[in-house]
């Protein structure tokens, strides 16, 4: 059992052991990088086709099912199409910036996978300030969006880029605020420690994951919504909405550069989903004692897949939010809730575990502002418009 659990670690040690001693750390790091790129590249391909099929099923139709069995070779077809497309750069575009923008988006996102713990002892780098690294890298990719929009010398691209950046910045605040209670509870910024801190079972059968506490549930909800907005995912995909702005900041990109943007977006989604699994769903922990025969990376993959399915499900269900609705939602609803969540988590941690009253107290402290803010939100009618008619 243990060997299966650590199979990737053992394989990497063995392979790195084949290299001569001076270059061993380098070879080890290269192996890990290759492994991560292979796994998440395949995950990207699978996600594109599974998303299309799932969206289709939820919309009472089949997804793509012509290429390969059940359409599973569709990503290959898509990849070939993207690669053989002509790479069109607008005449008045800023060539250097136009070229660098897809790179500036994709490279930081690959970096973010380095700190996620995919299983027991299975994070590529164990940083003391792991989660800070993650958020720093995430914010570095916003500049790439601006570069893409600006260099296309296209009004629509520029407006799309501005909207995308405004959205990403606005939703970074709830994202970080929602993850702070987790850091408080775990007492460390390092992601493997946070995953480890959620081990054990309360009452003998309920896993001690953060999502099973009031502040964890609220934090998970806020984190999930902010994560969807960070990766420009429905219902927050106004920047790339085809009916709004053609393709927003992606308008002037074709062929492989577009594929790189697409890849960067999906990889960002995977990274932030991995973070959500680590922070709130207990990382690689199994939900029950008797289920630990499945290896830790298997549980990570299962929870990861469940969250990706949840993202796809929400994409199939909800319409797109308008820009002002989006920003109002972030600043006037999510940020107050995240701050209140922070306070509630502090209250929770102050009360010892022996007092079940803390459940009621914390739940109440969270539900009341949610309902109140929600009422204010639902009851907001736009101001009556005044029309000046020509007479």
């Amino acid at each position: 059992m243990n060997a299966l659990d650590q199979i990737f670690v053992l394989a990497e040690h063995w392979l790195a052991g084949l290299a001569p001693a001076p270059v061993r750390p380098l070879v080890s790091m290269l192996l890990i990088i290759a492994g991560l790129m292979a796994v998440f590249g395949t995950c990207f391909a699978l996600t594109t086709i599974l998303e299309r099929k799932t969206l289709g099923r939820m919309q009472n139709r089949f997804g793509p099912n012509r290429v390969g069995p059940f359409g599973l070779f569709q990503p290959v077809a898509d990849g070939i199409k993207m690669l053989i497309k002509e790479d069109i750069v607008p005449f008045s575009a800023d060539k250097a910036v136009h070229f660098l923008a897809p790179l500036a988006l994709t490279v930081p996102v690959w970096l973010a996978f380095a700190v996620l713990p995919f299983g027991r002892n299975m994070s590529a780098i164990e940083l003391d300030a792991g989660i800070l690294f993650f958020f720093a890298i995430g914010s570095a990719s916003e500049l790439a969006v601006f570069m893409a929009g600006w260099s296309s010398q296209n009004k629509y691209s520029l407006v799309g880029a501005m909207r995308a950046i405004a959205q990403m910045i606005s939703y970074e605040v709830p994202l970080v605020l929602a993850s702070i209670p987790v850091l408080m509870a775990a007492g460390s910024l390092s992601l493997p420690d946070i995953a480890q801190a959620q081990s054990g079972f309360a009452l003998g059968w309920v896993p001690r994951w953060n999502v099973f506490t009031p502040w964890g549930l609220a934090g998970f909800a806020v984190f999930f919504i902010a994560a969807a907005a960070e990766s420009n995912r429905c219902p927050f995909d106004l920047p790339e909405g085809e009916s709004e702005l053609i393709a927003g900041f992606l308008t002037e990109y074709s062929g492989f550069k577009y594929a790189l943007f697409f890849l960067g977006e999906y990889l960002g989604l995977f990274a932030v989903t991995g973070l959500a699994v680590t922070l709130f769903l207990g990382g690689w922990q199994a939900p029950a004692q008797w289920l630990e025969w499945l290896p830790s990376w298997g549980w990570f993959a299962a929870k990861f897949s469940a969250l990706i399915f949840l993202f796809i499900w929400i994409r199939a269900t909800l319409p797109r939010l308008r820009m002002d609705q989006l920003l109002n939602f972030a600043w006037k609803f999510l940020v107050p809730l995240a701050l209140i969540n922070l306070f509630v988590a502090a209250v929770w941690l102050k009360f010892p575990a022996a007092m079940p009253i803390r459940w009621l107290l914390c739940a109440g402290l969270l539900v009341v502002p949610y309902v109140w803010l929600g009422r204010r939100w639902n009851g907001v009618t736009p101001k009556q418009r005044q029309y000046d008619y020509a007479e």
Partner: protein
Amino acid sequence: MPNDIAFYLIAAFTVAFAAAAMTLRRLVHCALCAAAAFAGLAMIYLQLDAEFVGFAQLLVYVGAIAILIVFAVLLTRGDEVRPGRSQSSPSWMAGVAVAVLVLAGMAIAILRSPSLQRLAPSAAVAPVKKIGEELMTRYVLPLEMAGVLLTGALLGAVVIAMHEESEVKRPARWPASKPAESGETMSLR
């Protein structure tokens, strides 16, 4: 030795981008090069094992301040230097002289200070927990002052934006007469 090589490489990277940020023709390019220089600074922090400061530098400078600069460039349309005009101002010699003087003063002060004769302290291990504890106990006053300053800046920005919005007048109705009463029909003019 590898540390030195790394430092020189990172320093060269940072200085190159900072120089580019000053000399490039298009303002947006300058802003992006400045962002790269910030990233170079972050790398220097990381090379000194200051993880928290390095990542905070990335998060704040590259993730927020660079975007702020870029937005400022976008919203005020001073983008390009017209080709043919010189990049530098006419009084560049005075600028160079001042820069040399300041640099010379700083270099002399640093080289003469006794801190260069002291032994380098052992690299302090600063886990994030320790930084947090220090911030909350010993340095809580600067932390709170920084918070108050940032809140003031935020409020100021909101007040300025709000003030501008209420000043926008609605266009007056044309013609400036009252709308037709309910009994009358609209007359063709």
